[in-house]
């Protein structure tokens, strides 16, 4: 599996393996790490771009034995973490291409650009700007093109 969970002193630590330029990096995170807010974190289908102080790289989660459900098939775009909606870029009925930014979420001092998992139409937008959303909350639902 890509992400193993460890429990240490009651804090859930996750071990994430990420591929960048062909090399696999193993990172332990527990949600308490500080990332400079000037970092841009841009999830796209298949991975995430991170740009910090002029260094921009693409990171691809390394998948283990249990494949994750295909993102492209998921008709629901969910909050990857608890945070606040900064900006909504689409409205119901909009046609979007794969990778188009739907919603910008701010959490842990970083902005997350949540993109369309596949080309399609926006079916519903379930949140408004400035809403606080819990992790896993459905933000946008998609319909086929």
């Amino acid at each position, binding site marked *: 599996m*890509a*992400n193993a*969970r460890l429990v240490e002193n009651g804090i*859930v630590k*996750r071990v*994430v393996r*990420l591929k*960048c*330029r062909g090399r696999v*990096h193993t*990172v332990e*995170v527990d*949600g308490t*790490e500080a*990332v*400079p807010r000037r*970092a*841009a*974190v*841009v*999830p*796209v289908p298949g*991975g*995430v*771009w*991170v*740009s*910090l*102080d*002029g*260094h*921009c*790289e*693409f*990171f*691809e*989660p390394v998948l283990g034995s249990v494949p994750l459900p295909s993102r492209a098939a998921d008709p629901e775009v969910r909050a*990857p*973490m608890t945070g606040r909606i900064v900006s909504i870029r689409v409205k119901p009925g909009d046609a979007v*291409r794969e*990778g*188009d*930014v739907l919603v910008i979420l701010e959490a*842990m001092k*970083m902005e*997350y*650009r949540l*993109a369309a998992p596949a080309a399609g139409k926006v079916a519903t937008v379930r949140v408004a700007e400035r809403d606080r959303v*819990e*992790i*896993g909350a459905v933000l946008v639902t998609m319909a086929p093109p």
Partner: protein
Amino acid sequence: MTKILVANRGEIACRILRTLRDMGISSVAVHSEADKDSPHVDEADEAVQVEGNDPAKSYLNIQGLLEAAGRTGATAIHPGYGFLSTNARFATACERAKLTFIGPTAAAMTTLGDKRSARSTAERCGIPVIPGARECDSPEAAQAIADRVGYPILVKAAGGGGGRGLRQVDEAAGLPEAFAAARREAESSFRDGRMLVEKFIHPARHIEIQILGDGKKAVAFGERECSLQRRFQKIIEESPSPAVSGSLRAALSDAAERLAVAAGYSNAGTVEFLLGPDGAWYFLEVNARLQVEHPITEARFGIDLVRAQVELALGGSLPAPAEPRGHAIEARINAEDPARDFLPMTGRVAALRWPHRPDLRVDAGLREGQEILPWFDPLLGKIIAWGPDREWARRRLLGGLRDLVLAGVPTNQRFLIDTLESDFFVQGETFTTTLESQSWTPPEPSKAMLVAAATAAAPPAPKSKSASPWRTRGSWRMGS
């Protein structure tokens, strides 16, 4: 009423269109089908789609461009750089269609734009040229010249530029294949397979002089050093050159002005020279058009070269050369992977935030969501920093490059930063072979980058029980 059609795309089309808007001149953009949503289309008053067999061919479609001008009532055409900008047939076709071509006359373009003709004009003017440069139609003829001047030599397209149709050959064995490859590139890029062979000066600096001419007189606007190149294409340019003294500048400027006058050159152009390790300099070629790196001259001389081009083409007089000031450096942001031989990259711009700070200029034509297509030059935009001295311009440019966010397509951003921070750049030791002699390895991503990526790529499991897919499956098993 003047109305100008801009026969180009990308950052240079946007840059030209903005000056036209400030001048109060109506503008027409052209675009291929694939480019119909590109930023330059929005910058013009009108836009016309031009057909082409591939997305780049539209901008080479002379008949289509002239029809677009006719349909919109354009009175003049600005060709930008690349594409048809140095194509004398296009300049002639514009003249015949009673359209003002914003550039030199077709005659002057032929005299100076063709490498062979430019070389003989330079020789007539008493300007030094590179030993052995002769046109040759076969690998055998090339070999004969090489044997005379000695290796290494350069094989290059007689009718081209921009690094395409160009090969360095270090020994006789490699010549036939290099000659054939360069000719193939020349034919596909410029529809012109004539080749030149010349002595390879090494290590050399690439120094060029900006000129403006009115057909009778010519004025030089200082030099630009463009030695830092990869795949023979410039990547970082600066003005003034750390290697050019006042007397050398005067000599180069004088040579450039004499050459322009000899050819009856009008409008903006650039005369390129090679500066050898012994201080000797050689005429290289003329770029009979606006250059990508023109902003560093603008920053130092306080001139808008596009405005000057338009005014000269409409019969205005030559601007007086102002006293240059300070130092300017440009970095080109390319969609390419410097770790893999600068392979051009494609993708979709997922995030874009240009830097803002005093004395920093950004020339680009890019928007979030834009698809970077494989048919075009990998240039995404340019950042130009000015400073009272070289060190301050360098620091400003570094600050701007560090602030830039451009994600979704790999670029040379970090490579530019490392280059500007290198000892050789700080010391001004820049030669045309410097970058290819250095190996660059991208730094490992920092801890902060990895943590940011890990957090975004694999968010923690939802806390609400009902939302967890694992919980749901467990219940099923229990019920079965």
